[in-house]
């Protein structure tokens, strides 16, 4: 075991990538860390709300099991349950670790961590640092990784973009090809394993709440080289975002919570100022359609209704926007309760929401789907792992608020030891090792050269815009099979037109044009995966809604969608979901979760090891401590096995005793 020589390449420097980097460096191994932006500027900074972990410091009887149940219930039972459970069990320890790293989490009067309530749960389970928890968590990991960078364990390649994997003759991942975004130099980086941590693909939808680097391009290259992509059709759309010319910015749901009213002019295309439209000429469509809940209908319903109104051309000014009106509430009240979020609106729109109704529209926010991984974050390509939003595990058909940050860190913490384990056991390349790098380098050079040389009358940015429009209109909130088919045809047309783009920048130094063209190609491939996944899934579940198939269909679709690349397009197959811990029940937020839960899963739940809540005041010597974060976590691959009753009793802790012991169990 030549542990000193192990080198893992990590692609992406957000929470998941940095979490994995830190663990690998701490274990004494080397990391090459690739990021298209300085890692401190990754998209994780955008997360505002907080990070979930059931610590039960509020005396509410919360437990990691409750968190687990909320997660799979919120995900409409499409998530494999063992990793979701493992994440919830590790969550308190993750929060405490960030606390020790110096994250300025909000405190109680005793100086303990404070927790707030978030969507989809009845417990105070969300630790938060002001309104910028993601930024604070990312910085904490950035700082720790910088410490390891100083120690020579981590080498950062910032402003480098991964272009493809290097696979050997037996399909094992042996490293990657990356491009320097200033010089456009392509270089091969051998590695004993590669971890993808590149985040979501929001830019496929043109504009989203995602950052501009969130193209999904790197993940798409993995898919095109044989990695399976799972549940691509599950895209979370946030009901209230601020539409901008450049992106969609999140408007917190608390605006509706504090009494905001959603409306459009009754007369479509009415050009009067909102203040001069009389009450009876306003259509408060949520209040009209849902008299019981009014503007406080759940997130998915609000999203669908607002979207539908706009698609029918009834949006304000005929555009994709509706009013979210707070002007009937006194300005002092608004400042007290919503000050921070109103300032965001003012900063980016320029209107004062205290006096002018806000204009909002649902915005693509998060991809539950991603690279298929087993319970150790390993993809189907040996030596390639994935963590964070770019993998499909944990969230099922819909992600719970404040679960994204914890899933990123969890994914990184599991991927790191799994990558080391793989690297320890893999034989290094022999004499012909360098050839595979040279071959892939040549292939990438040829793609770039061809793009630079080709000339045609298509504009890459307009093609991107067209793709975004089609995907937003047809593959987000409300989905119809005929429109999905038409969208796939449009994507094929765009792929054809892509062959006739010309790079509009004759200066290739630090150009944005060539990288964007490469992203566009990869985004089109992934767009087809998302679209065809949606077309094939004839049911409604979580974020995926088809009016023609309005119910969840467990008989036919309690399955993970798996897309595999072929020259003719994605080949879709299905894999059963591991529901061994909680029996699926109807997801219905109009009732308390417990009512349905008692009947459906009580029996099975009782067969599990007795769960206790964490002590009220967490102490270092508390009896039920979350598992040791540095302990190796290795699970057997559970791709085919489903609903094995014995799995109920096997926790990650029990299985992951040591790398040596557990290694035999993994296949």
């Amino acid at each position, binding site marked *: 075991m030549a542990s000193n020589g192990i080198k893992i390449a990590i692609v992406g420097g957000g929470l998941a990538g940095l979490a994995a980097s*830190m663990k690998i460096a701490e274990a004494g191994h080397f990391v090459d860390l690739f990021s298209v932006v300085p890692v*401190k500027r*990754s*998209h994780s*900074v*955008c997360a505002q709300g907080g990070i979930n972990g059931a610590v039960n410091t509020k005396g509410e009887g919360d437990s990691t099991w409750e968190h687990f149940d909320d997660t799979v219930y919120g995900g409409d039972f499409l998530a494999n349950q063992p990793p979701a459970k493992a994440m919830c069990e590790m969550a308190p*320890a993750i929060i*405490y670790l960030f606390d*020790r*790293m*110096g994250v*300025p989490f*909000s*405190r109680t009067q005793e*100086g*303990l961590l404070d927790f707030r309530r978030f969507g989809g749960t009845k417990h105070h389970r969300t630790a938060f*640092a002001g309104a*910028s928890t993601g*930024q604070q968590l990312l910085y904490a990991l950035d*700082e*720790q990784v*910088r*410490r390891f960078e100083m120690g020579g364990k981590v080498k950062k390649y910032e402003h480098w973009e991964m272009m493809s994997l290097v696979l050997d003759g037996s399909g094992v991942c042996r490293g990657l090809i990356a491009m320097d975004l200033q010089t456009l130099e392509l270089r091969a980086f051998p590695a004993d394993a590669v971890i993808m941590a590149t985040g979501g693909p929001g830019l496929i939808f043109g*504009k989203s709440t995602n*950052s*501009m680097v969130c193209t999904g391009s790197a993940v798409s290259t993995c898919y095109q080289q044989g990695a399976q992509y799972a549940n691509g059709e599950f895209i979370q759309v946030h009901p209230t975002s601020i*539409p*901008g*010319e*450049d992106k969609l910015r999140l408007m917190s749901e608390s605006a509706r919570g504090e009494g905001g009213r959603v409306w459009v002019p009754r007369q479509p295309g*009415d*050009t009067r*100022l*909102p203040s001069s439209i009389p009450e009876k000429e306003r259509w408060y469509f949520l209040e009209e359609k849902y008299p019981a809940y009014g503007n406080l209908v759940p997130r998915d319903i609000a999203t669908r209704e607002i979207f539908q109104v706009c698609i029918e051309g009834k949006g304000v000014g005929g*555009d*994709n926007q509706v009013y979210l009106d707070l002007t009937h509430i006194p300005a002092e009240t608004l400042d007290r309760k919503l000050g921070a979020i109103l300032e*965001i609106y003012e900063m*980016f729109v*320029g*209107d004062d929401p205290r006096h*002018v109704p806000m*204009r909002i*529209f649902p915005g693509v926010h998060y991809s539950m789907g991603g690279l298929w991984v087993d319970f150790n974050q390993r993809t189907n390509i040996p030596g390639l792992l994935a963590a964070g939003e770019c993998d499909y595990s944990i969230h099922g058909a819909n992600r719970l608020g404040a679960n994204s940050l914890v899933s990123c860190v969890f994914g990184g913490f599991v991927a790191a030891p799994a990558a080391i384990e793989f690297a320890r056991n893999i034989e290094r390349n022999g004499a012909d090792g360098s050839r595979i790098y040279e071959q892939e380098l040549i292939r990438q050079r040829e793609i770039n050269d061809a793009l630079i040389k080709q000339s045609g009358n298509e*504009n890459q940015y307009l093609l991107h*815009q067209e793709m*975004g*429009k089609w995907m937003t*209109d047809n593959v987000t909130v409300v989905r119809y099979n005929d429109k999905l088919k038409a969208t796939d045809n449009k994507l094929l047309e765009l792929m054809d037109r892509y062959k006739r783009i010309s790079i*509009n*920048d004759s*200066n290739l*130094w*630090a150009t944005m*044009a060539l990288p964007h063209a490469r992203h566009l190609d990869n985004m089109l491939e992934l767009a087809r995966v998302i679209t065809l996944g949606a077309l094939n899934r004839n049911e409604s579940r979580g974020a995926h809604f088809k009016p023609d198939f309005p119910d969840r269909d467990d008989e036919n679709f309690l399955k993970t969608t798996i897309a595999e690349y072929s020259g003719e397009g994605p080949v879709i197959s299905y894999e059963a979901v591991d529901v061994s811990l909680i029996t699926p029940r109807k997801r219905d937020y109009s009732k308390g979760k417990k009512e349905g839960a008692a009947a459906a899963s009580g029996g099975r739940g009782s067969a599990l090891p007795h769960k206790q809540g964490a002590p009220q005041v*967490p102490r*270092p010597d508390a009896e039920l401590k979350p*598992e*040791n*974060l540095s*302990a190796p976590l290795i699970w057997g691959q559970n791709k085919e096995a489903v609903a094995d009753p014995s799995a109920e009793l096997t926790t990650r802790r029990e299985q992951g005793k040591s790398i040596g012991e557990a290694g035999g169990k993994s296949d």
Partner: protein
Amino acid sequence: MTATQSSSHSSSVTRPAKQLPKSVEIHIRRRANPDSPQYWERFAIPYRPNLNIISCLLEIQKNPVTSDGRPTTPPVWSMNCLEQVCGICTMVINGKVRQSCSALIDNLDQPIKLEPMSKFPNVRDLVVDRSQMFDHLKRIHAWIELDGTHDLGPGPRMDQDDVQERYAYSRCMTCGCCLEACPQYDGDNYIGPQAIAQVRLFNMHPTGKMTRDERLEALLQEDGITNCGNAQNCVQVCPMNIPLTRAIYEENREAVVHGLFGWLKK
């Protein structure tokens, strides 16, 4: 950008009718590569309400033609979160350093002048290399020395007031506005307000305090805290409203005490 998503055409219905400009005139200070000279180019794009600088640059990028009709190379800039939290899109707009994502056209005098930050190496057009700021974070040991990342329970208890002060420093996104505005900072002669505020962030933390001497030593180097000329420009331009001058005051005091008496500890 996409037609159906484009939001802002209708702003005319939410704003009082007033004389709106027909186009947005933007002058960009450009540079092809680090070895070539800077030059100005003028662009004009159709006016729409609620545009920000990024939207204008995206529009120019699609079809880069100067306002006198001459095709040119697309201007290059940095952008990512577009929510003023990643710090990457910082540039000098009408003479003031700020993030371009939160710079709204409706609030700017035209013609709008865009320039790269002047205190950092200029890569191309509006892109600069701020890696020196990250190097500063290494020099001041801007992290908590952990025993390890295994589970050791929660961190130390803290007063919410202290947390709030630390939170203010912890929001620094390494954008470089403070260094651009600082009359003392000129490349490598002064470690600058950004790094000093991070020293404050970690020296305030109960665990961070245990290694505060290392950070103070860094501030006592030749390019250290004594180079501050008290112009107080930094705190004026900081987009996160970080109390930079307070950090400089506090750390100067700590550093002076450490410089005078620190040797007694050894």
